[in-house]
């Protein structure tokens, strides 16, 4: 399978990862070799096989849609890199 540096740039953009030039080069080679190794999967016959997402086959448990208070709001806010009053600061997204 062919993976080019352009593919790597596209994937890095989707993943919101800034990569240095040498990283792009490194990952182009490594992803090529990892995906090459994964070609093995194509030999598995999965034509009529359903995918497994929960190994126990469990259904989503539901709870009442009821808000509750977190015991220590301050502890959460203290971790935020940017803060104003009781809000987390974010850069402007709409002009």
């Amino acid at each position, binding site marked *: 399978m062919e993976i080019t540096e352009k593919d790597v740039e596209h*994937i890095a953009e989707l993943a*919101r990862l800034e990569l240095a030039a040498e990283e792009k080069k490194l990952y182009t080679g490594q*992803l090529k*070799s*990892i995906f090459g*190794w994964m070609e093995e999967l194509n030999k*598995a016959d999965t034509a009529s096989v359903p*995918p497994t997402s929960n190994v126990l086959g469990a259904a989503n448990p539901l709870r009442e849609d009821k808000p509750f208070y977190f015991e220590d709001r301050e502890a959460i806010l203290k*971790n935020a890199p940017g803060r104003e009053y009781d809000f987390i600061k974010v*850069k402007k997204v709409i002009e």
Partner: protein
Amino acid sequence: MEKATEIVSQIKGKKITAVEVLNRYLRTIKEKDGEIRAFLEVFSESAAAQARAVDEKAAAGLPLGRLAGVPVAIKDNMLYKGHKASCASKILENYISPYTATAVQNLIDADAVIIGRTNMDEFAMGSSTENSAFRPTRNPADTSRVPGGSSGGSAAAVAAGMCPLALGSDTGGSVRQPAAFCGTYGLKPTYGSVSRYGLVAFASSLDQIGVFANSIEDTELAFSVISSHDPKDATSVKYPENKIPGGVKGLRIGLPKEYAAGSGAMDAEVARLFGETVQKLKELGAVFAEISLPHTRYALPAYYIAASSEASSNLGRFDGIRYGLSAQGGTLADVYKKTRGQGFGPEVKRRIMLGTYSLSAGYYDAYYLKAQKTRTLIKRDFDEAFGEVDVIFTPTTPSPAFRFGEKVSDPVAMYLSDIFTIPCNLAGLCGLSIPAGKSGKGLPIGAQFLAKPFNEAVMFKLGEELAHAG
């Protein structure tokens, strides 16, 4: 090596205090951890306060918990309110937990003393702790070698006697593989049996919190304490009542032919020591049968696609806004990209790239969906095998602990060191690695039992009888 069960009975019998126990372990850490580097942080103050509280309870004649005064280390991806949890990553280096993980709270409620947080591969991605953003941990059996990973710090801490118990997390072998490399017991409980609330998510369909200990009794005790049904974890389930086997005699044990010597790169000494353990189990009356798990060769690629895909999604939250490192940039998108580019290490980036690619438009069916379908085939292999046998027995790893740097430049070679541990997670089974002797060079070798979901008891029974047979 002192057992947790002995500490509890000595404290309950007032022969020793929890403060004395803690101080002894803190001294051992001081002596040994400069070289081993298992701990990222020792919680000296909060641990001392906890130990004093246990002693006050004892003095007042109040009932003591099942882990009274036992120092327990936790992997650095578990939250403990007011303490750092960094996942051995620069992106979370100064993160302070706003709440406590349920598994850790269960330890605290049982009067255990949380002694510190242990080193790991960044975000639990790796098999050697070499991916820690801070420093690698050394194997106590041979400090020129890795302790395994990703829970390498927890394994090394228990193996070096710096604490009698430690928690780790196992997504593809991250408890069992380091347990085997360091010579401890390592349990990967059934998916859903231990709450993951407060465990930083890596691959949610595979992650499970597990235990390191120096004896089978301690492993069982710690598991019974941390296992609970927790509404805060949507995948947590109520542990069903199961029949406890009377003994090893008559138990049917399967040896997968796909895992046998000659089928891959299995070290001759691993094969020999594994064979000796099989012989011991035969002497205890176990009945062996060869079984087949025909889709084994697909397990590794299916795992790396599924786990990396889930990781690329789970790690989306580290964006420099709500917590952790925040790199300054022009636009909001620049902040995201720079924060993540600077904050994540090479293996984490590699897996995010791998996962993002597998989930991206045009490749989803070929990779992610294909992996999840193959996972069904692997699970069916086990369902069929467990129709014939009660438990499956394999070496934990194909070879003993490797040297630092040996596999760093070749990701696929590193991934292959988890070849025997990964299928268990894909199928949601429980697994237990037990010490199975040492190689000629003195390196520990591990063997693992695999059992059906919620059948930990059968593995414990096998471990107990083997340990008592000597």
